[in-house]
């Protein structure tokens, strides 16, 4: 069961219609985990991340129409990444205003205030997006495979068990476990490729 290519080839276009619920639901589905995880990794608390995530979608919904008009600005993904980045920077700036030193020029205080807190390192936006793609792809592949084949794949490839142990657990031959693992991996690659090239 291949995900229908039409759904997201036109997602960007469809998003411009704020009435197109389906498109927005799909967009949120893809980007919600990406943005949330990204924000959490910037050191935001759960509540802040949720709030900022809300802002992200608001920002996108407000500006998406204009975005099409300026194609030269780069990829859609790059634009989303920038929106996220700006939100994070804004958050750093506004969320921590109370720390700004008396009478300092704001610019310097800004830099120093950010310096005053030690956040965990950011994970690349692209990695998170790719992660989201993998999750969706795996969901789709899992549905098309038999549950045994999927388990064989998961136990060997993700959990890192040896084929022999997994074969015993699942009552399959070692060869069948190997075939199932490779089959799922290959299929996953196809689906990931399809998803990435649609958007």
């Amino acid at each position, binding site marked *: 069961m291949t995900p229908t290519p039409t759904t997201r080839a036109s997602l960007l276009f469809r998003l411009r219609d704020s009435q197109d619920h389906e498109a927005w639901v799909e967009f949120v589905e893809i980007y919600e985990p990406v943005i949330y995880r990204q924000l959490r990794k910037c050191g935001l608390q759960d509540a802040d991340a949720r709030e900022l995530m809300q802002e992200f979608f608001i920002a996108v919904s407000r500006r998406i129409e204009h975005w099409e008009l300026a194609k030269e600005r780069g990829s859609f993904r790059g634009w989303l990444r920038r929106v996220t980045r700006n939100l994070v920077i804004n958050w750093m700036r506004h969320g921590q205003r109370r720390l700004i030193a008396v009478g*300092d020029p704001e610019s*310097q205080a800004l830099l120093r205030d950010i310096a005053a807190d030690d956040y965990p390192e950011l994970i690349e936006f692209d990695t998170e997006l790719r992660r989201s793609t993998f999750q969706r792809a795996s969901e789709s592949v899992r549905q098309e495979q038999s549950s045994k084949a999927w388990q064989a794949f998961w136990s060997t490839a993700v959990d890192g068990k040896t084929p022999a142990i997994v074969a015993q657990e699942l009552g399959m031959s070692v060869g069948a476990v190997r075939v199932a693992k490779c089959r799922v991996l290959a299929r996953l690659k196809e689906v990931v490729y399809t998803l990435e090239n649609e958007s």
Partner: protein
Amino acid sequence: MNDVCSIELLANAVANRLTADEEAALCEHLERCNACCARMEQLAGGEQWQQEAASLLMTDELDAAVPETMVWSEVDFSVEHLEPSEDANVLGQLGGYDVFSIIGRGGMGVVLKAFDRELKRFVAIKALSPHLAHSSVARKRFAREAQAAAAVVNPHVIAIHHVQPTGRLPFLIMPLLTGESLAQRLKSRAPLELTEVLRIGMQAAVGLAAAHDQGLVHRDVKPANIFLERGVERVVITDFGLARAADDVSMTRLGVVAGTPEYMSPEQARGEALDGRSDLFSLGCVLYEMATGVSPYRSDSTIATLRRIVDDKPATIASLAPELPPWFSHIVERLLSKDPAHRFASANEVSQLLEQCLSHLQQPMTVPLPACISALASKRYRRSTIGKFVAAAAGALAMLFAGILILLELDKGTLAIESEMDDVPIRIMQGDQVVKLLTVSKEGATTRIGAGKYIVEIGQEFDKAVVKEGSVQLSRGATEIIKVTRIDADKAESEQAKDEAAKAWLRRPVAGRTLDGKSFQLTGHDALMDCVMRNNSEALNRLLTMDKYDLDFSPRNGQWTLLQLAILHGCIETTSLLLRHGANPNFASEGTPLPLELAKRSGRKELVALVQKYVESGLAHQSNAGKATGRQLGTVLGKPIHLHERYFANQAELPGLLYNLFVPELEERYRKQHPDVEPTDSEIDDLAESMNAGFIRSATEQRKLLEAALLRKRQADPTSAEEVPGTQAFIEQVDETLKRLKTDRSHAAESLRKLKLQKHVYENYGGGRALKGGSQGLVLVDAQQRWFEERERLGEFQIASIELRNALNSYWTIESHPGSTLIEEADVHEIIAASL
């Protein structure tokens, strides 16, 4: 059986194109042939692919936290129903209010958190749900009921500040309460203590009675609509009127039951006419649920629930909570009568009944149960001792307080006096009249007084305790808490002495003099800098440990300069204090050595050891924010930046960084100018360029001027051989500036006047405390000190330094000491004019 290695077969296997027989054969072959296993893995994407898949499919703790809420609904709501706002931090506007977030939504309304700009306070907006807003019947009903609800003024009914019946979404404005709903409370800890059940039930009944007096039936009394205010534990009934508005539409047109069926009265479930007694049935359900933890008519489906409400008798309270007294079951059973005529006559009656029961629980010996239920009182129930009530009440009020708690049960309200100590004489005053004299002691004391305004104070000649906020308006059914706290004589004295000393230090005339009878006060960073410059570790310690004046005495505020100065002065005590209070030893001002480097230059071993200790300790590592920031900014900006080495080493990095930080602002600015066009990168760049130009000018000019000053100093002192790169160009630019300034004579005169003012204030403040600019502090301190030394000789340079002064001007904090008037700049002008 095919036992031959075949790439084609493997490829088909991976692509799932084998027949069953082929597959079986291959599986067997693979058990023997490691080479084919490896080939197949290669065909499936290889090692690298497998590793990436594994790492990206692995779940982590963040996955569990990814919210399931549909963000879209909020976006949807704000896009469709709110007016856009210029402020990017708000969702949008509704009727002139800035909407910040959506607090909750139900079938009938949406609750928004919003800010009232005129009154400068947060409010809750309840808007009629968009799907109901299309119905004119619902809108009219909403408006009428909201107006009716607004007329109910009672502490236990949510206040309605404003009703806006017209517009896209009709809405009403309510205060934004803090606390939790009874539903939330029950979710976290049900069942509740009987005293709490009675207290909440009584206050809810008081609120309902007030509404019923206005002819308003709530129709949706349920735990979610009973709000428990934080701290005071005041019960507030919310959500009046909306139920009715929804009812009219859904019941009559769609044939769907609106509202929450679990707490509905039988007559409501049957769609009959309602009066206040319907709310009493719902209140009975709520009491039942509070006491037992389950709602009486919960069922799998709406229809089943409605059927049970109409036909069934719920499980008896005794069967669920045998420890509860029979009289309580009796009250609830009567409230849950199917026939309204068999319930209590009014909410008023219920509130009085519950109040008497509460009194009885507290003082079973002196207050009898109400006559109508006393017959059912059982001797088995022995929980109602003062001690238990005290414990329960303390828990319920979530205010565990050291010492004893005495409750005064008032016939129209509850006055609680919490005391930290024994034998405190208490006087309860109403106006000039002493209503009651009490001694708060372990034995306890009780009294009964009417509702009204009281002042609670400590009796005569007792100076070991103090009443906090002793003025109280006691209203019917409310609980007011008065706290009596201990004054620890010794502690208070030393605290006071410390305070006084600290205040005196802050107020002392700077540089030993006052101006025209007024003295200056140092605050925040200025004060710290002053201490460091004077090696006054005692004062520094006091400031760092003091948090009483709302001033920021954190060494992290301008920390780099502070620490560097302390080390330069070679003062172990101040250096150590700053380090202990979080000054970062791994950071240096722009172009200056790290603290450790400075310490080494001083040649003092103990200083080096001290700094070294903090550099290496975990604390230092933790506060070593600079590198982390560099990494973080770098990631955000998409390029690696090592803040310490590169940012400070290269001035040009700064505008670049700022440019990136200001991108959103620039985009906003652009949009204001061209509302119809989304800015492109190049347009943003242009905007940024003009902004950058300004920034670079001020930043580099400051630097240039300083370096020019340094150069001149070096020229005057040939032993200083170090050449500052580009100095000649800087000096030329300075001369250029000078020329320009001199041609504008009035400007020059004004500047000179300001410079004199600057000098005057500087000299009166003393030290280098004026120079805050964080990253540039030390350079500036050093430079300005030199500059001041040489300014006579460099006469013209005084004028050029106005540029510097302008940049520094905003750093000044001139405040008079508390109690006297603030010194305005104009005042100082006058003083100076007189003294010059």
